[in-house]
């Protein structure tokens, strides 16, 4: 076993039966390395696939064929990991983190749509914070190993840096240069880092943020991993809206929601948040429609500037 406090990677869990300590010989070392590199590859493939599923160009409908192929790949990895037993470890870690997590109200606030989903999923009434934590919000060294493992998965799924402006409520959003800078930094970090989650971060605040992210990521994991089970949005409180959308093919939205994800894209954070709100199901936010045209214009400008 590894001494307590040492960084332990997910893939290392597979090495336990093999790398005992005393009776390791050359061939089993090689086998161990092969196994762990395979696990590493598999893990990075899983992370990449999840990012791909969540990243979406919300202006145009995502390519269904591509989404389905990526989803199948994720399922395949999931099945394999289930057989290995690594899946259980990961989900246990996630649920442990979930239990330990708190949510704070002054986080980046999700809107009704996310609330509806969480209501259905977990029966909670409090609006959950949007996935927030980037690599800056890392736990301190004393974080438990399980959390670290969960955070690995969390890292790749979290998007926006906690240093970003706190409120994403429509109407208060804008092109905050501070937020954008954070994002580009965040982007690089996300791409460069593999499974190393114990970086900076200090103090209880960092830990708290980390826990929050784990809450989000748990839900994200459950949403995306599970069985792609789409939690039907809780019935809209507005019967008029219900009537309006009664003949809409809701099932397509659902797949949309999951496969394209509710999470924001690093580059397109606030824009996507609002866009996803209005495109996925009835969104009672009245100001979202007024913001939409601005959004489109801004998107357009952004695209020209960034050259995407």
């Amino acid at each position: 076993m590894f001494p307590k406090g040492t960084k332990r990677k997910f893939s290392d869990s597979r090495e336990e039966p093999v790398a005992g300590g005393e009776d390791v010989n050359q061939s089993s070392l090689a086998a161990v390395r092969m196994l762990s590199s395979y696990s590493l590859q598999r893990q990075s493939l899983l992370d990449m696939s999840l990012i791909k599923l969540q990243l979406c160009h919300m202006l145009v409908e995502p390519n269904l064929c591509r989404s389905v192929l990526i989803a199948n790949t994720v399922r395949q990895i999931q099945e394999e990991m289930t057989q290995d037993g690594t899946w259980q470890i990961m989900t246990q870690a996630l649920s442990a983190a979930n239990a330990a997590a708190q949510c704070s109200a002054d986080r980046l606030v999700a809107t009704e749509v996310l609330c509806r989903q969480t209501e259905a999923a977990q029966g909670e009434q409090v609006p959950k914070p949007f996935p927030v934590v980037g690599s800056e919000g890392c736990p301190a060294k004393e974080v438990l190993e399980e959390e670290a493992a969960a955070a690995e998965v969390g890292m790749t799924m979290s998007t926006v840096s906690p240093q970003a402006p706190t409120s994403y409520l429509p109407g208060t959003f804008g092109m905050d240069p501070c937020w954008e800078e954070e994002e580009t930094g965040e982007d690089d970090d996300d791409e460069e880092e593999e499974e190393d989650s114990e970086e900076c971060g200090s103090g209880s605040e960092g830990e708290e943020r980390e826990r929050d992210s784990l809450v989000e990521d748990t839900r994200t994991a459950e949403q995306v991993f599970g069985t792609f089970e789409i939690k039907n949005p809780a019935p809209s409180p507005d019967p008029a809206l219900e009537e309006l959308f009664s003949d809409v093919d809701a099932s397509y939205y659902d797949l949309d929601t999951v496969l394209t994800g509710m999470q924001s894209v690093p580059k397109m954070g606030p824009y996507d948040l609002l866009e996803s709100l209005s495109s996925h199901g009835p969104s009672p936010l009245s100001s979202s429609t007024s913001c939409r045209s601005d959004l489109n214009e801004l998107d357009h400008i952004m695209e020209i500037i960034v050259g995407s």
Partner: protein
Amino acid sequence: MGEDTESSKVNHSFLRDYVTEADVISTVEFNHTGDLLATGDKGGRVVVFQRETVVGHKPKGELDQVGETGESGEYNVYSTFQSHEPDFDYLKSLEIEEKINKIRWLPQQNAAHFLLSTNDKTIKLWKVSERDKQPEGYNLKDEEGRVKDISTVTSLQVPVLRPTDLMVEVRPRRVFSNGHTYHVNSISVNSDGETYLSADDLRINMWHLGITDRSFNIVDIKPANMEELTEVITAAEFHPHHCHLFVYSSSKGSLRLCDMRASALCDRHTKLFEEPEDPGSRSFFSEIVSSVSDVKFSHNGRYLLTRDYLTAKVWDLHMEKGPVETYQVHDYLRTKLCSLYENDCIFDKFECVWNSSDSVIMTGAYNSFFRMFDRETGRGVTLEAWRETSKPRAVLRTRRIYTGGKRRRGDVGVDSLDFTKKILHMAWHPEENIIAIASTNNLYIFQDRVSPDTQDPDLGSNTI
């Protein structure tokens, strides 16, 4: 493309890319005689080229009288029109791209030409007609069209048609809308000349060319529970001769031949063509790589040609258990699948085409390369569609990818391949050895010219 040098300090390349994004060609198709060639682009425009009828033009295989180099008719712009405009789905708050996904010509029945063009949601029937005559000599109107004073009319004349400058008129004749919830990937005109099919990710509809407000749903693979969705339709085509047969391919690499006489809803296939997976070569990318991106019936209707990410396969309609021929298009990418997955190139959809006699198949690859395979010998050749290396009327050289062994001059290493230069769309003339290759926003037309000295045909190029 390629004309920007590094002379300016400011990097304008993103601007250039942005500007020409709309010019990226997204489909190429010859009509049934090969005299017309249509291209569709991302900006929703259709450009139709017409082959020059050069005096002395001889049918294939014979030398032209004009010159030693054999001057066959070239393709010049015949007409350009805006087929689709960007649209907006208000219900889902999503844009609908105007990119032309497919163009298919109808068999010609009169002097006018008809083609079907489609974007993600709407199919349109366009009539392309010529006007080269104008009536002149009206009794009541003068040359400018003003009404004459009757008292000046002293005799009657019969108006005659006089030739004028050629005008090409394009008019939309039918708009087939609201037929598809998902993105249309294929259209195919039936051999009966009256119907056509359109396929999206989950459904295939059959339309009558004259009726726009109704279509028959003939295939529906949408699961009741969208969570269970694991397979989508990637391409579909009618049989060239049997109006009751059509085939569709899936993202899992299977082909289904359906007979519309069997039932109204052809969810149950008549034949299922599937190659059993080799368990030894299974990887996480096996399924993605097996997804069929294009399917084409051979001209004789006996074979199917399919393209998946790494191979092109020929299937015999009478044998369902596997392809009769498999051609490796770019097997050297097999070890690079992870990076290709990361940059999304693994999802690129390459098309494939037959030649007129079904003896040669052709498909595209990266780095502006495309491949041709001779079915009789089994050998393949790599060619390049790139402005810098092919001057008009120059002979195409074959290229090689260096994968080990002795490296020859001109060999390209796998790591220096440009994955942004992909040849996805192409067409082969229905009767002659003329091919049209779309490379981003350029169209290359290559013609086969049999040189008088040797028997080997070589390809000359004509860049547009």
